[in-house]
């Protein structure tokens, strides 16, 4: 690991100040993406800004005004998966968090860190898009679909820090992930959410970033059951092809995962 300076700001303002004044800073919360990256010398930040001590951005609550779930960005995957509020209102989201990495990783990894990193194989992006999420930062708000720009690229500016993420509560939802047996990342991850008059289907792990499937959404809005998807054909063009899976295999996995997700949502 190359060396760096280390800071532990107590407030968002202090953190933003550091992000602006340091030469080439990186934010750390849980660190289980950044530290492995540094160990492999794939990054060389001049300064690390540890935001894990900042108060007020790790709570989970139910907003009374618009009935959305508010999850503080420093909430660990462990916290989200065990939160009564999440389990009671969006159990599929709690399940998603419980499937990230392993228990030790889940204690440290945070939703803010995962979302800001925008790994194309991460789980959260599918949930954020299907649950109409709003990503709130010290500087503004983003709709989930506008937030994820490309592989490891988001709309965040360099000194912007995610503080909260807001989620709609669907009538029914489910997340199905075809897990890479070694890394645990999503080779394909499908999040389906049913609302009063619409369905949102989001896919992670299969493309350079999370995407929706409008044809599947139309079919499921007409009739929300796995049978509606029998004739659905999924294009492999544009999907990731790598040592784990070909784009054709991913296209196949999307369909089977989506049908599984609908069955689970209906249970």
């Amino acid at each position: 690991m190359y060396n760096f300076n280390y800071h532990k700001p107590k407030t968002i303002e202090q953190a933003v100040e550091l992000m602006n004044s340091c030469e080439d800073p990186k934010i750390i919360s849980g660190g289980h993406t950044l530290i492995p990256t540094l160990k492999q010398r794939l990054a060389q930040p001049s300064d690390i800004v540890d935001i894990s001590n900042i108060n007020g951005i790790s709570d989970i609550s139910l907003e009374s005004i618009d009935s959305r779930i508010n999850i503080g960005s420093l909430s660990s995957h462990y916290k989200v998966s065990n939160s009564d509020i999440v389990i009671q209102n969006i159990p599929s989201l709690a399940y998603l968090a419980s499937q990230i990495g392993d228990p030790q990783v889940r204690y440290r990894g945070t939703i803010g860190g995962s979302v800001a990193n925008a790994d194309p194989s991460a789980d959260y992006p599918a949930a954020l898009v299907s649950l109409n999420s709003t990503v709130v930062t010290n500087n503004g708000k983003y709709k989930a679909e506008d937030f994820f720009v490309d592989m490891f690229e988001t709309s965040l500016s360099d000194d912007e820090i995610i503080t909260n993420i807001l989620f709609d509560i669907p009538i029914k939802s489910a997340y199905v992930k075809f897990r890479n047996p070694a890394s645990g990342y999503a080779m394909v991850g499908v999040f389906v959410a049913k609302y009063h008059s619409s369905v949102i289907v989001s896919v992670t792990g299969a493309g350079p970033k999370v995407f929706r499937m409008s044809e599947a959404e139309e079919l499921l809005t007409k009739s929300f059951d796995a049978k509606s998807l029998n004739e659905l054909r999924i294009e492999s063009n544009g999907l990731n092809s790598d040592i784990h899976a070909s784009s054709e295999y991913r296209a196949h996995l999307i369909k089977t995962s989506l049908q599984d997700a609908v069955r689970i949502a209906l249970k």
Partner: protein
Amino acid sequence: MQLVKMNVNGLDVSSEIEINTLLVDFLRDNMNLTGTHVGCDTSQCGACVVHMDGQSVKSCSILAVQAEQKKITTIEGLADGDELHPVQKAFKNNHALQCGFCTPGMVMSAVDLLEKKSNPSDEDIREWLEGNICRCTGYQNIIKAIKEVV
């Protein structure tokens, strides 16, 4: 260089270290607690698992400075003098180790599991050990040992 302070196995310790020192290296090199092992160095194998403020964590993926003021327990901190921890005894009695390299991490993960889940099923135990890899035993006796303590 920075002075880092934490509590390790009940003892307040401090040391001048390079900021890019990993917690596992701080424990092994500065504290001479070599029971915690570096296996894969890529956050997968769990040989480096210790407890930090009551949570099992991978010390190869944490900087020592991130552990400032925190309470760390390593494998050396489990036994009470000569009296082994129940999980250690169960591992011994059930032949749950061969080379022993993964064992400290397995034991630390297991101790955390038993603190968080009062009656884990086989399934719960296997899922909890997702972050601990063993190349020798095939896991059967590890599961058996943990079940014995339940």
